[in-house]
């Protein structure tokens, strides 16, 4: 099959050829080429003798019949499909035999593509150069996507590459449009950590660290939103099982501390708490170097305001977010906490109703389309139980017209934050307790 594949491929590339040309091009032995040619007569026609023949015997010259190009390509594709099935089966067997971490070579092109986006991208300054690097990464990765399903190592690197690409694109977009919202970043946060995990599982700690480092040292680190997002990634990474990743994460936190001090910027209370907590976790790490680094950074971080001691509630106002899409709901809760509210999450509308009955909430934000009860039905049941609690309806289809007796506002899920929802909450609940104190 190998020889046939190679000879047919050579025929496709050369169009007109002698048997010797095919042998040179394909690297297949001349006699084998002749055998394949004899069996594949349907594809070629005889053009006569080649004047350059040697030793008195002139080579026959052939050419692919123009009407057979398509069939020839199909034949080659078929052979390649067979080869892929064999290669995948072989890989699967070797994985089964040697456990989950069978070593498979990762194509250099993928590593070079990662390098382009993770390291080189942070060193470039112009849009043209950045687009060039995105293009290079695409060129380097494109042909391995199909391989991903059967090659876990390849898949991990591709996954990391996709995350890097997304980060790069967001960084480019943020330069021209600083309002890229936290939802996009929160989704990315999950992807970054997942990709780092996958790389760790494939024995690629350097690449995992590479990914994290890129996340931290990206050119837009000074943008508040990006910085906060990166902080959250790192806060999770300090508890990662890989020592290398934890070390990179704590050192990166040190850089963030230095950056804040250098730029004389301030973190929102919630982020500050996240930073302190992450440093506290690192300072208690089992590794000496990480502990030492964390203690050092904690000292450098003493300039940060200490207005949010751990464990103390930030605000007295309690909000409840109800959404059956857990990832979206949690993002909203996270944002509310950043603003200084005490927010809680519930994915089941029926349970949400029970919680509202059992305790006090200042405001409830509910999704419109949910399994079980939809937002409208939930609101009606809340009102039926004589609760006057302000309700906000969220909809993925944009703001919808609502009954004013039921809802104080309707907001779009697509552009949730920060202005629209915050304004609604401020209007009906007031500013967070913390901000009042500071004022």
């Amino acid at each position, binding site marked *: 099959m*190998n020889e046939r*594949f*190679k000879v*047919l*491929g*050579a025929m*496709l*590339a*050369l169009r*007109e*050829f*002698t048997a010797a*040309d095919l042998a*040179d*091009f*394909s*690297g297949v032995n001349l006699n084998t080429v002749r055998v394949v040619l004899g069996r594949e007569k349907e594809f070629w026609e005889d053009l006569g003798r080649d004047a350059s023949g040697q030793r008195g015997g002139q080579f026959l010259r052939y050419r692919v019949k123009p009407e057979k190009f398509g069939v020839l*390509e199909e034949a*080659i594709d078929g*052979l*390649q499909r067979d*080869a*892929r099935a*064999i*290669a*995948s089966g*072989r890989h699967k067997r070797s994985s089964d035999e040697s456990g989950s971490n069978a070593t498979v070579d990762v194509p*250099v*092109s993928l*590593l*070079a593509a990662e*390098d*382009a986006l993770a*390291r*080189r991208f942070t060193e470039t300054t112009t*849009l*043209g*150069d950045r*687009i*060039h690097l*995105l*293009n*290079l990464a*695409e*060129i*380097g*990765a*494109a*042909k*391995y*996507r*199909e*391989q991903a399903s059967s090659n876990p190592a390849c898949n991990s690197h591709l996954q990391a590459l996709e995350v890097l690409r997304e980060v790069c694109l967001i960084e480019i977009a943020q330069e021209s449009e600083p309002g890229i919202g936290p939802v996009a970043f929160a989704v990315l946060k999950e992807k970054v950590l997942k990709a780092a995990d996958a790389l760790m599982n494939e024995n690629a700690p350097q690449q995992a660290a590479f990914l994290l480092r890129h996340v931290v040292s990206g050119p837009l680190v000074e943008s508040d939103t990006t910085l906060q997002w990166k902080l959250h990634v790192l806060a999770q990474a300090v508890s990662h099982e890989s020592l290398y990743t934890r070390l990179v994460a704590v050192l990166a936190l040190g850089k963030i501390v230095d950056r804040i001090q250098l730029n004389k910027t301030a973190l929102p209370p919630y982020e500050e708490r996240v930073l302190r907590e992450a440093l506290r976790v690192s300072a208690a790490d089992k590794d000496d170097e990480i502990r030492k680094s964390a203690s050092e950074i904690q000292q450098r971080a003493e300039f940060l305001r200490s207005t949010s001691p751990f464990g103390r509630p930030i605000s007295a106002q309690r909000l409840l977010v109800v959404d059956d899409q857990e990832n979206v709901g949690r993002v909203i809760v996270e944002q509310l906490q950043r603003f200084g509210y005490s927010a809680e999450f519930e994915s089941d509308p029926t349970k949400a109703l029970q919680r509202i009955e059992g305790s006090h909430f200042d405001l409830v934000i509910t999704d419109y389309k949910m399994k079980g009860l939809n937002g409208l039905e939930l609101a009606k049941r809340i009102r039926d139980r004589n609760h006057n609690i302000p309700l906000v309806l969220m909809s993925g289809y944009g703001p919808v017209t609502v009954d004013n007796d039921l809802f104080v506002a309707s907001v779009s899920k697509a552009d949730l934050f920060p202005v629209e929802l915050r304004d609604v909450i401020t209007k009906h609940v007031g500013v967070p307790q913390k901000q009042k104190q500071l004022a």
Partner: protein
Amino acid sequence: MSAVTHLPLNARKVVASRLLALTSLRRQQPQFEREDAVQTLAGIEDLYLRQTATGLRSQNSVPLDRYVLDTFRIVSQQVQVDTTTQDHAALVDSVLQTIDAQASSLSCSSCSYLAPTVCNGEYSDDQIVERSGICILPITNMFRTALSSTVGCYQNFSSIFGSATCPSVDFSTAAVQKRPHDIPVPYYVGGVTNYHDSAGPNSQVCLCLCIDEFEWETYLAMMYVLFHECVCHVFQGTVPWRGQTRQSTNANDAFAEGWMDWIAQWLLIGEADRHAAGIEFPALQRDTGRRFYLARIDSGARRPSKYAVARIIGTRAAEKLLSLLGALPESKSDHLSHFLRLSLDLNLSSVDPKGREAFAWKVDQYLPERLPSQATDAQVASSIAWDENPSAVARFADLVRNYLQTNDFAAFVHEVALLPPPESRGYTIHLTNDL
């Protein structure tokens, strides 16, 4: 054009004395081997290295020639009292006399155009070294060899070199504190080419040496570094000359640092094998150059260079295209010439460096790697399954055939740039500067 600078006097004292001692000793190495006295030779070499390290602390008021002479006499005395050298006394005496004679012929006053003023650590030192510089003459000669070989190569193979506004080329030297690269080899030498094009094209090649670590291996590696700078960078982007300052390519550039470097090492090997004048230790300089070249692209090393993967793309692309040209009936009889013509023309041309780099990446992705003859069944199956794409190769071969007919490398590069990434299905992004 920018003023050419050279190693400071103290650094030159170290370099000049070591160049003289090391080359003289190594010329005698066959005799030492015959007498089974290689250890003795190594011991003497070590004494020279230790004693010449004092050059960095030497006063500027001590001229270089006197420093070298004094230092060598101290070493001679040390060698003569060393009992381990007495078994081969005649050979050792002979080599010491040779080194001493060479040191005596080093004369700063005959070198300096400002004589009786000689190099004294002042600004005029650079001009004295630039005009004659007998102390670093072996290095300057290496550069001249590399440059003339490179010019010969461009003249023989490039189709546009004749029309090039040939840049003036300067050679400078600099001392650095650390190894000037991150390549996993113990060679403490690096190079950089800067462009000073304000008054016409001017390329300044600077050889960077870590003086403390300047030893025999580093000496041998210098030739490859100089070939690299000359082949890859000196003539880059001069056709057509637009009167604008050229941009240096970065260390990640797959074309300049990978593809063209393949040609640099190929040229060095060829010149060394034909014992070209100016390559004094051809076999050793060739082998060291080859080791340096391979280490640059060794991504599997314990601590690989951070630019290794980008360089691999370039060298691999060059080898793949050469292999394709060697297999196509239209070019196989003279495939190396075709390959060199395309590569050198592209390097000479003022095509945007980003375009050259993307070209190298595309070539690498479109053409499969030829497996070694002892490849396992698994490697063959994997290669056919994932690496080879006969339809893509056929498309690429059409473009190559067209190039061979027209010799229009710019059109070829443009057409390659327009090819979509091979086998991308459903997730391709096409970004342009028009965004």
